């Protein structure tokens, strides 16, 4: 919460700076609207209800992609940690696929998955699965060897080893992977939508931004960006802080 307040304070300073630039008249008002115009636009758009639906739609799609990506990452890491051909395969796959921007894959993805929400989810999954897998693997590799020895001596089952030892032990890494994944999922989502336009009934925030750009509605465009920024700060400063407080900080594992 403290961090949230601090970030908000920085945000206010930046907004003040924005207003100063606007008042100086260096840029034309049509491309550099005042803070009040942006806020008014935000209130109107939210009041009409469509922006709210678009935000929900975006969040839902992002969360689906994240969830699928997380499950896939866990499976990949389980294979990766075994020795032999499958591990090599996963290692190669990660090295090849991780640096590839999702947007670069889009033409191919469209050919394979068609147009629509599905292809965006595939793009989100691609954006999140690699950083998640890399972080989870790093976390499991960093696990002290003594845990394996204890598991052996006390004959712990595979389930106990995975759920009660490997997972919590790599949680600091997994959480940092999730933060990266969250940011990347947003990028993939917005990029995909701006290319496809409306998905579902109302589309998402990408659709919104695209439409506002077409109509040259700069205040509304900025209102959309503001929402994305605030969502990012909320999740980073409130959600992740909440999770960390209840896990790795409570356990004295926070690094």
């Amino acid at each position, binding site marked *: 919460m403290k961090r949230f307040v601090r970030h908000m304070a920085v945000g206010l300073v930046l907004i003040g700076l924005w207003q100063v630039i606007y008042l100086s008249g260096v840029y034309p008002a049509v491309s550099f609207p005042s803070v009040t115009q942006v806020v008014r636009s935000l209130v109107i758009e939210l009041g009409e209800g469509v922006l709210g639906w678009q935000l929900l739609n975006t969040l839902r799609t992002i969360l689906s992609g994240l969830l699928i990506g997380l499950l896939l990452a866990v499976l990949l890491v389980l294979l990766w940690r075994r020795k032999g051909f499958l591990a090599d395969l996963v290692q190669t796959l990660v090295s090849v696929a991780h640096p590839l921007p999702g947007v670069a894959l889009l033409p191919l993805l469209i050919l394979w998955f068609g147009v629509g929400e599905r292809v965006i989810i595939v793009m989100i999954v691609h954006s999140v699965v690699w950083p998640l897998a890399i972080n989870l693997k790093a976390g499991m590799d960093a696990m*002290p060897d*003594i*845990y394996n*020895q*204890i598991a*052996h*001596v*006390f*004959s*712990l*089952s595979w389930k*106990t080893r995975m759920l*009660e*030892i490997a997972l*919590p*032990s790599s*949680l600091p890494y997994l959480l940092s992977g999730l933060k990266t994944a969250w940011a990347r999922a947003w990028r993939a989502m917005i990029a995909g939508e701006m290319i496809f336009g409306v998905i579902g009934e109302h589309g998402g925030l990408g659709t919104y931004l695209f439409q506002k750009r077409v109509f040259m509605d700069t205040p509304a465009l900025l209102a959309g960006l503001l929402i994305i920024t605030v969502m990012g700060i909320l999740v980073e400063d409130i959600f992740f802080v909440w999770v960390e407080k209840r*896990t790795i900080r*409570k*356990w*004295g*594992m926070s690094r």
Partner: protein
Amino acid sequence: MSVLLNTENLSLGYQGEALIEGLDMTLEPQEFLTVVGLTGIGKSTLLRFMAGLQDQEQIGGQFTEKTGLRKAMVFQDYEQIFPWKTVLDNVLVGLEKSTVHLTESKEILMELGLSDKENAYPHTLSGGQKQRVAIARALMRKPELLLMDEPFGNLDYQTRRRNQKLLRKVFEKHAMSILLVTHDLEEAIELGDRVLLLKQAGEHRFYDVDDNAGREARTRLLEELIFELDT
């Protein structure tokens, strides 16, 4: 077989190079055997071999243990306690949280003076308390053989003494044998019924510790051990 384990001419080592050579030993039920020797002589190697940790190899000789021997182990490292589990959950790791187990674990925690720490997370515990949690966890397995690798090696003198006394009490209450590796000769005499001294090139000797022997006899034994280690 009445003995818990028996070795004949046992050689252990890494990558074909023997660290322990020609060891003959037996461990009886309810016996406390301490193992001493200079650093790198293979004390821990021996213990880890008996725990079934497969990082060393048996190069030669015979090793037999009672079939189905229940073993548990306490390590030196504080990291052996999982930071994300409370004391109680650490003690119960891998066991069902049944009423029986809960009652048992609470009794054991009380025995080890940890009753008020049941719900504490390890990072709030002292080093001595963490080691006692590890002992509690091992006791929950009702071991016939408890293997201990320098369990008090990281503790300050006072805490070590207190934990040693407690361990001896625990040993006398639970019907089990303990094999404890230490570099602390006083600890070896204080705790063990017998002391196994490992020397270079497979040389080894057993010393009986007479519980009723006076201070003088113990001091003599200590001096003998120090002399043996130096030569």
